[in-house]
């Protein structure tokens, strides 16, 4: 049994804050930060936006492209590390908002920045087993950063949704295969009731991000007997621009393969929405037959890898909803005080 994407959708809030604006507040060197992280500006949620509203927007775009009855969804999973409630599912809010009826299973997932791709794998399993007809997997976040922390330059807001189905005739892209690499690696965490995450500085690099992304990718290539040169596009999780570019170089991928999915420079790291949004941006452009590699990373730590192949139906469906780039171009810049209000640092 195989599974494919029958609908996909993106959403990125329109608000932005420039790295320069944040650096000015803390007396930091903007050039060093922009050169180091490769992030010029990041997206910020609106005052009335949260993971649930972002997930709903993305899900609506996915439905617009899938042209299915929302009541045919048998599962809804929303992956995030900023669910509005600790107890009360975002997935139920989304199901209600998109008119999924009541006959579906739902849950929220959390695995730092890879909760969305974990949801995608769960939907694949349910669809492939024949348990459900369609599954909706969403990765969305309004990620937090303590004021003054290095994360403040990257932690952004956005999300992507994918509807997974088993009918080949409905596929916009086939998910050829997936695999994961997981370990207990404490590089980044947030305890319950803590407003901001903590992280282990440089430890988040080599033994965390790189180890898991590289191992998951290698396992995926081995499993599918594919080489880096067999791919038209590659999307690696983007906590900043430096890490995915370095990972791509180590694995033998070229800039022309990863540049389309590398949206971190313009919107920051949208956490659970990050590599999924990279995928939606690639799907907005990729020609039928194109092969795509997607590798997520979630701190704690794990990576999910996917191999996708674009199908002809995508040509007539991609125009049915706003493209990822449309959201990237919508911008309203905030000053730091406004940003603090949007992030609920001040009330």
């Amino acid at each position, binding site marked *: 049994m195989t599974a494919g994407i029958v609908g996909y959708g993106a959403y990125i809030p329109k608000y932005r804050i420039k790295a320069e604006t944040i650096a000015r507040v803390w007396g930091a*060197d903007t050039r*060093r930060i922009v050169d180091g992280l490769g992030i010029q500006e990041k997206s910020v949620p609106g005052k009335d936006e949260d993971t649930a509203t972002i997930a709903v927007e993305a899900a609506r775009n996915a439905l617009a492209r899938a042209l299915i009855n929302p009541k045919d969804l048998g599962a809804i999973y929303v992956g995030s590390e900023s669910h509005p409630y600790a107890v009360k599912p975002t997935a139920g809010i989304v199901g209600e908002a998109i008119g999924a009826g009541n006959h579906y299973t739902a849950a929220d997932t959390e695995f730092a920045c890879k909760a969305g791709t974990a949801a995608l794998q769960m939907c694949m399993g349910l669809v492939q087993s024949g348990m459900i007809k369609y599954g909706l997997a969403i990765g969305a976040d309004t990620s937090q950063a303590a004021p003054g922390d290095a994360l403040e330059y990257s932690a952004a807001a956005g999300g992507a949704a994918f509807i997974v189905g088993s009918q080949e005739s409905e596929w916009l892209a086939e998910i050829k295969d997936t695999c994961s690499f997981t370990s207990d690696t404490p590089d980044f965490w947030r305890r319950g009731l803590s407003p901001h995450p903590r992280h*282990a*500085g*440089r*430890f988040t690099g*080599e*033994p965390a991000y790189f180890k898991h992304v590289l191992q998951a990718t290698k396992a995926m290539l081995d499993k599918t007997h594919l080489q880096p040169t067999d791919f038209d596009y590659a999307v690696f999780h983007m906590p900043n621009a430096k890490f995915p570019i370095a990972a791509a170089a180590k694995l033998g991928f070229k800039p022309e393969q990863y540049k389309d999915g590398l949206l971190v420079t313009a919107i920051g790291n949208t956490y659970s929405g990050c590599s999924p949004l990279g995928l939606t941006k690639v799907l907005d452009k990729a020609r039928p037959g194109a092969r795509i590699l997607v590798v997520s990373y979630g701190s704690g730590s794990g990576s999910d890898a996917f191999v996708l192949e674009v199908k002809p139906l995508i040509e007539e469906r991609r125009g049915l909803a706003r493209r990822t780039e449309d959201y990237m171009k919508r911008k309203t810049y905030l000053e730091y005080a406004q940003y603090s209000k949007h992030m609920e640092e001040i009330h």
Partner: protein
Amino acid sequence: MLMVERKVAVIGVGITRFGEVWEKGLRQLLAEAELQALADARINPEKVDMIFTGNMCGGEFAGQEHLGGMASSILNLNVASTRVEGACASGSLAFRQGLMAIESGRADMVLVNGVEKMTDVSTEHVTTGLMGAGDEEWEGFQGFTFPGLYALMAKAYMNKFGLSRKQLAAVAVKNHFHGARNPIAQYRKEITLDDVYKSMMVAEPLTLLDCSPITDGAASVVLCNAETAKQYCEAPVYVAGSGQASDTLALAERSELHHVKATRLAKTQAFAQAKITVKDLDLVEVHDCFTIAEIMAMEDLGLCGNGKAGRLVEQGQTYFDGKTPVNTSGGLKACGHPVGATGVKQVVEVVQQLQGKAGKRQVKGAEIGVTHNVGGSGATVVVNVFKRGLP
């Protein structure tokens, strides 16, 4: 009056990779160095009479004090095992304890370790912890950090002798050149003068590449009574002289900041015991926690006259194949600076050089080498002299 009856030899060395050793904790680093040194000396742990372990911040950075017990229990031994602390000179102090234990006849075979695990805590935490090496009341509490203290010393030196930015940066470039040729070094890559100038300003005039890094690592050496050394080792290296001196904790209490008095005092003791002059030296491992520290050390050890070290470095004379090789290991700058391990690492480097085992950074025909290890801004200094032949 120094009355030393028994002479001491180094018969085995062990050292871990230096760097961000994420996959190993304090215990593993220590165990790896200990076991390597014992294997190098071709002895069973049971031969060891005493253990001394240099460490500065085990409790602060790794939550582990009582490293004496740890060092012996790794080897399943019940012998006397003691942790020694003297800030960044902890490793050398441990070495001297081992040396004196054998000289006095209390022990015949001593294992000396130095270890530090630094990368499990934040840079801010490390910077604060290391400030414990200064004077808390007069420096730390006032907001000083070590880069700040050494920047003051650099400014004082520059005012006195007119050292150029290029001369200072040349120390880092040379040490990275050596580090690139040392398999255990943290930074095995060469850098340019321009890289040093352009790196982030830490404390004027010191930029990031003027500063030694935060490092995990451990080093061990096995010392034994020189009379029996040949039973274990074909090419023992002998401890020809050793000196230790102290000075005020706070810079403010010193009459001059452009040199380190304790280095001059320790050197005088060590050179006198070894019956050598500076002309006899083939290489030195000095404490370059900051580039300026290497400049001052060269002059305090007498490698050149006051105010002349910058020229020597700029002319390339301190490269491994130059007239006066300094820090062939890469120094603290490029090899890394796991504070408690550094003093022992310096001994490992000199021993390997004198045994002709230093590979691509080998100083040809090296017979006599010196280690120079500083605690804090110079409140504790140890200088040791090593010889290939029996002194």
